[in-house]
């Protein structure tokens, strides 16, 4: 049984990077709330909010949880569970015809 070092890991970001990510997260949250209140954007509300939410989700997972820098197996494990969860949500919505309401 081989004992491989974690050669795929890279150094974690600096504190300044973490603060920059937090700034972006704050701006995106402000944008989300602003979009919610802008009546003219109502038709595009769902795709816009889902896109912004996914951006925040990805930033936290990649930079704060270090998946961008850690071993790929961690990413595979988590993303596998995440896709299953998304599959469950979409399947249940389709099953109960909630997507077309």
């Amino acid at each position, binding site marked *: 049984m081989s004992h491989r070092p974690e050669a795929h890991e890279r*150094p974690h970001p*600096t*504190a300044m990077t973490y603060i920059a990510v937090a700034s972006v*997260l704050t701006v995106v949250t402000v944008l989300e*709330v602003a979009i919610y209140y802008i009546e003219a954007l109502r038709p595009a*509300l769902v795709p816009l909010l*889902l896109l912004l939410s996914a951006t925040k989700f990805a930033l936290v997972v990649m*930079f704060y*949880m270090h998946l961008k820098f850690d071993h790929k197996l961690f990413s595979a494990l988590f993303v596998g569970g995440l896709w299953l969860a998304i599959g469950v*949500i979409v399947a249940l919505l389709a099953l109960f015809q909630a997507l077309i309401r």
Partner: protein
Amino acid sequence: MQQAGALGHSAEAEHTSTGLNHRKLLMWAFLASDCLFFGSLIATYLVNRGRSLVGPYPHEVFSIPLTSYSAFLLLMSSLTMVLALAAVQRGNAKWGRVWLLATALLGIHFLANQGYEFNQFAHEGLTPRTNLFGASFFTLTGFHGAHVTLGVFWLTSIVVISLFRPHTISPKNSLNVEIAGLYWHFVDIVWIAIFTLVYLLQPAPPVGG
């Protein structure tokens, strides 16, 4: 401020079949399973939304400014959490404790907001037994709040234990903080999803309702 080769404990070669630290691997496996847990609760909420026969309805009770502020609190707590890990990996236990306590306090503030929100809803007649919205909303956000509560206890216990046994947050043992951090960030990303799917994407008010 470069964090001197901050690969963390897990970067060391582990004597495991994967070469990876199994505690960290286990935490990622748990988080993957927790994705399914919250995925099911979110799906249940979405399936039931707009199907309540009696009020109060979401648009009548939700306070977007309050929940936006709560979302901001959790995002900032993720920042303080990652700064705590960086400090511990640098060997700065004092700042590690400061950032960990800040994270726990932000979590407590979030929980206080949630308690206030739940109390307001109860005053407006919305409880888990009122309608489908109440049942699925309180189940989803209640379980999230329970996760935050557990996280607060976890972070606080790390700080308290480190006061008596400083080596528990030494750079060599930074994995203790890293694993707690993974859990905390997960709680944050779940709220990112809940904030959008539950609060911002509300169904249209019922016709005649």
